[in-house]
């Protein structure tokens, strides 16, 4: 653990040499290391980290962090259990690192839209979350902008429409899909370039549900912001709320009672089961196997009902609060959950057997929508999608939070990276989560469920393993109010994976590939 934590520090010492003075490196409350870099040092540092297998897991901007520069960019790198944050002061201009770290491209475009920072040398400078109806020069995350309605265009001139990448050649044609889709799903635009039925290129355009989550949080009290964290993505309500609360608790050095962590973990795992069941049902619908799909959708509805009995919310909302839990759960309720889990395990096995012994399902699942292992690091692919492609990533194991160090999940790993692997990984994770919940309920201690210690000023990074993978948030509290709440969900990272996963597959397989990754549009668009 300690040795791994030093990987970050060692890397800094390697690229800074004698300049790596201890006062330039500071530790965050979540064990992340911050290093402030001068501009000439920056590019060597990034190349060095890239050569040493560090993954860029986030890049975000912030105003007012330093007195010397207008904006501060935070480059968050991960290697195994080590988190290193490079701090770079800029004045509206910065060099792009997207050619070294392709995952930086969306992040840089996000910083440009939000703060007006231009990235020189970037291969893609199109707008990201502000679509073409927003006025030029509008950057909502600047402190000078007070959150208020803006006037946008009601029509877009064809000449100003979003320029999709063009793929030319004999027999290549484009299929535009969305933002409004045929099913009951969230909006997004998919631009397929196709040869016959085979997908040659896919470009996803997102951010249709951009609701301004990060700006909305600014100036709010940390307590009010829990509700905003829950609204990042409906089926990740507990994960995002917990990540936010963890950040605030670490900043304020609030000791969360052990019982509260047990309860949090129970509902975090319940949320994971619910989400995975939905994915599995959806994947089976998309390969026309409703018999299998209904096995899982019935279990999922029961899961929603159990959640409702336990927390009075089918989405487990309103339970997690700063310092612990807002309500306790009685022994009778917990025993009922144990009964539920046991029944569920049996019935889930039956459903799984039906599915995995059906040739037509396997035929559609394998080897469809392969995500190659070599893409994991450059694109920062996370969660079950990465684990199905041989990735050793799980925040619960790499950066254990709460009580996961005592209740570590089984490391799941498959190599093929296709739809079948993702389906199977999710099945194993459901079984594992069911076991985990049962063990938690057997050993849950009594005691307080909340600490009401006061919130203090400061900043930190928090990581959590949501159903979809690593969710990250960076919280900065100033004068008791939220100064910056940066959220980056697993979906934001994994959208890039789907563009690669579909290549060479046929359009009719797109829905099942999409569902196997189960990305949240809302969690991406913020």
């Amino acid at each position, binding site marked *: 653990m300690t040795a791994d934590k030093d990987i970050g520090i060692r890397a800094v010492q390697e690229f800074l040499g004698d300049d790596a003075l201890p006062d330039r490196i500071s530790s965050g409350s979540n064990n992340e290391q911050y290093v402030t870099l001068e501009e000439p040092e920056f590019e060597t540092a990034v190349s060095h980290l890239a050569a040493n297998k560090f993954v860029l897991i986030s890049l975000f901007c912030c105003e007012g962090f330093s007195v010397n520069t207008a904006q501060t960019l935070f480059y968050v790198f991960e290697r195994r259990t080590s988190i290193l944050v490079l701090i770079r002061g800029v004045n509206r201009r910065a060099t792009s690192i997207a050619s070294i770290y392709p995952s930086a491209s969306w992040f840089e475009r996000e910083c440009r839209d939000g703060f007006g920072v231009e990235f020189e040398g970037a291969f893609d400078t199109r707008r990201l979350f502000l679509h073409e109806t927003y006025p030029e020069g509008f950057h909502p995350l600047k402190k000078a902008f007070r959150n*208020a309605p803006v006037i946008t265009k009601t*029509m877009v001139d064809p000449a100003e429409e979003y320029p999709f990448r063009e793929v030319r050649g004999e027999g290549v044609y484009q299929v535009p899909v969305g933002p409004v889709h045929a099913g*009951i799903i969230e909006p997004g635009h998919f631009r397929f370039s196709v040869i016959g039925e085979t997908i040659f290129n896919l470009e996803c355009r997102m951010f249709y549900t*951009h609701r301004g989550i990060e700006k909305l949080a600014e100036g709010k009290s940390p307590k009010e912001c829990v*509700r*905003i964290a829950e609204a990042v993505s409906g089926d990740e*309500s507990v994960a995002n709320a917990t990540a936010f609360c963890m950040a605030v608790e670490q900043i304020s050095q609030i000791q969360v009672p052990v019982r509260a962590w047990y309860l949090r973990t129970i509902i975090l795992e319940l949320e994971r089961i619910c989400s995975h069941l939905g994915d599995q049902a959806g994947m089976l619908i998309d390969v026309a196997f409703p018999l299998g799909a209904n096995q899982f959708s019935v279990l999922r509805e029961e899961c929603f009902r159990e959640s409702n009995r336990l927390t009075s919310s089918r989405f487990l909302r309103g339970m997690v609060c700063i310092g612990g839990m807002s309500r306790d759960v009685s022994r009778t309720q917990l025993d009922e959950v144990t009964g539920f889990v046991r029944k569920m395990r049996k019935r889930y096995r039956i459903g799984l057997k039906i599915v995995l012994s059906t040739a037509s399902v396997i035929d559609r699942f394998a080897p469809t929508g392969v995500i190659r292992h070599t893409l994991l690091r450059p694109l920062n692919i996370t969660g079950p999608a990465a684990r199905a492609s041989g990735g050793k990533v799980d925040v619960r194991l790499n950066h254990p939070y709460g009580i996961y160090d005592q209740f570590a999940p089984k490391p799941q790993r498959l190599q093929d990276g296709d739809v079948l692997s993702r389906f199977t990984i999710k099945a194993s994770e459901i079984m594992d989560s069911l076991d985990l919940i049962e063990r938690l309920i057997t050993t849950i201690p009594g005691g307080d469920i909340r600490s009401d210690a006061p919130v203090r000023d400061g900043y930190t990074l928090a990581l959590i393993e949501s159903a979809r993978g690593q969710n990250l948030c960076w919280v900065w509290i100033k004068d008791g109010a939220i100064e910056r709440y940066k959220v980056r969900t697993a979906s934001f990272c994994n959208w890039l994976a789907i563009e690669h996963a579909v290549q060479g597959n046929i359009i009719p397989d797109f829905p099942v590939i999409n569902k196997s990754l189960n990305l949240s549009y809302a969690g991406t668009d913020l």
Partner: protein
Amino acid sequence: MVNALTCLLKKKVTEDEPADNDDIEAIGREIKTEIDAVFGRSLAIRELDTGSDNAAEIEINNLNNPFYDVERFGITFVASPRHADVLIVTGAVTHNMAIAARKTYDAMPSPKFVVAVGDDACDGGIFSGTYAVLGGADKIFPVDLKIPGNPPTPTQILTGLLALMRMAGKKR
């Protein structure tokens, strides 16, 4: 009546119906009666997400799971607004979705009904008055019924649809 009894007594080829579902059956039967009377036996719904956090979509989707299975009450979710009687809107209307949302509404044949599902679609919810949204669904087209909730449960949505049927019947 004979029909209902036969349903109960005949041996089923399917699996057992889920238990704990009594209010759904009652609301469903009432809806079916109203749909028969007001919409000529079937109601086609198109769902439109204008900026939701996806919880409301999940609940609307759940209306199709075996517990609710609303097709048996005459309700179908259709793939195009051109086939729809009712537009169910979820989420506050974002600037990025406003044009597509208007096009969706315009593509529906008249008479058309709009139902806002969830707090954000009703009045913008927590996003009201911010830069990224116009507000609730009624900022861009007329809304006939609002079903509040964060998100409303499938039963609440179904109860809302029953209210819409009754309202539409009176308007006739």
